[in-house]
């Protein structure tokens, strides 16, 4: 019973998924790895067995610069998990290399997050996991410039 209660209050772990295991393993070592297509140059997330743009399987892994911007975000005011109390920010981050990912924006008041805000990767410890999150780029703009909707390579 005690063990079950502890599981319920522990921070949610990544899904046990062959596709994303390497991504989370790299996070434990402080790297955000994107998959890169060596044929067409496309960077993508989450990892997959072939390039979603050209279907080539000639792929490798590159560490992201960690720089990006907020495409859109929401402030959760309702809590869904005891380890993640509200308020907190869930955002779609577009990395400068092109891929988008869901993450959190931390290191500022929830109400100060803006669409288009420039952000920088940080790893935060949650239980035995390192979670890739983003905080505002120091000295960077915090304006509301239009987040890109185009694809980059």
């Amino acid at each position, binding site marked *: 019973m005690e063990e079950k209660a502890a599981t319920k209050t522990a921070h949610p*772990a990544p899904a046990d998924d062959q596709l994303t295991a390497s991504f989370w393993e790299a996070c434990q070592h402080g790297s955000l790895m994107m998959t890169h297509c060596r044929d067409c140059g496309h960077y993508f997330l989450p990892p997959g067995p072939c390039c979603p743009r050209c279907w080539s399987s000639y792929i490798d892994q590159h560490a992201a610069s960690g720089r990006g911007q907020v495409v859109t975000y929401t402030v959760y005011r*309702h809590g869904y998990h005891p380890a993640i109390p509200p308020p907190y920010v869930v955002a779609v981050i577009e990395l400068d290399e092109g891929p988008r990912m869901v993450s959190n924006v931390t290191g500022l008041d929830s109400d100060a997050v803006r669409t288009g805000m420039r952000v920088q990767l940080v790893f935060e410890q949650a239980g035995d996991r390192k979670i890739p999150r983003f905080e505002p780029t120091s000295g960077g703009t915090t304006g509301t410039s239009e987040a890109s909707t185009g694809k980059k390579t």
Partner: protein
Amino acid sequence: MSRGAVIAGVGHSEFGRLPGLTPWQLETTAARAAVADAGLEPGDVDGLLTDPGPAQGILDGITPHFLRLGAQLGLDPDYAGSEILGGAGSVGIVGRAVLAVEAGLCSACLCVYGDSPLSQPAAFGYGRGDDAVFGFFGAVGMHALAARRHAHNYGTRPEQLGEVVLAARAHAALTPHALKRELLSMDDYLASKPVAEPLRALDCCMVSDGAAAVLVLSAERAARLERSTVRVLSQAQAHSLQTMGNGTHFDQLPAARSAPRLFERAGLEPSDVDLALLYDCFSIVLLMQLEDYGFCARGEAGSFVENGGIAPGGRLPVNTSGGLLAECYGGGMMHVIEAVRQLRGEAGERQVADASVALVSGHGLGMNTHTGLLLGADR
């Protein structure tokens, strides 16, 4: 046209919190009602398609839902299957039934949605895959990201989301079987608890136990019926399976791609539509579809719904029985049923005068799937 397909019967169970009833009891009730509504007998059914709702779809993932339901209905049909398209599934299986009947694979295809999420709550809460790591729980979060994007792009205000909810309640007030029939004021809406900003509790649809069924029949067999039927004018689907990998995922729904094809296949324009039954799991999705289907220009859905634009008597009545926001959670099949009732002129106090063309849409999963039908009165 001899190989055409029509909707000949509709039926549903009660909806609400129904702990004493299994999904199977609800679904067989809906099936019986739809076949009886068409004036047919159980032995006339030769096709079965099902849309198991979220709780059942997960619980019974191994044993196909159609197999379990078909056994209980004593069916050995010529055509069968289940589809998991989330909230797009009910409209999707009706469209698939039309294809099967038109192709001559079967001639009387029963389409059944059913679920008991309130009686099996453990199966309903979810955070998909790695989303839970970031606290990205519930469909509300995904839709909040779209709502924020809409506000950023077009200046959409909370009151404009509120208009969608107020209109749903106004329609439900005229609908005897709707679950939320009390009218709301804008102050009531604005006082609603924020869940995932900018969405409030009242922007989220309800969750219900219940089942609904539609019988798709060949035009040939329908000609022998006394009952008036509803024509299927066209269907279209579009999906956005990449989610984050699609650069426009939060700016428009896949409906932006399927809508022009839907109208073109029917030889119709958005202005020909008398009423729309738009999947409304969250208020924002209804706003986005008004733009995707071309009822207004992109970015103008907020002003379109102001001043009762989609309410009873509005320029485009939308979800005339209250929809997922106020009628019940009927998986999208209740949207099909309401369209049929309106087009048969059987909607009572909420009847849209001279309704001859109705749009019905389904939308599901992480805003990944979209299905649409144009239905026409048989006159």
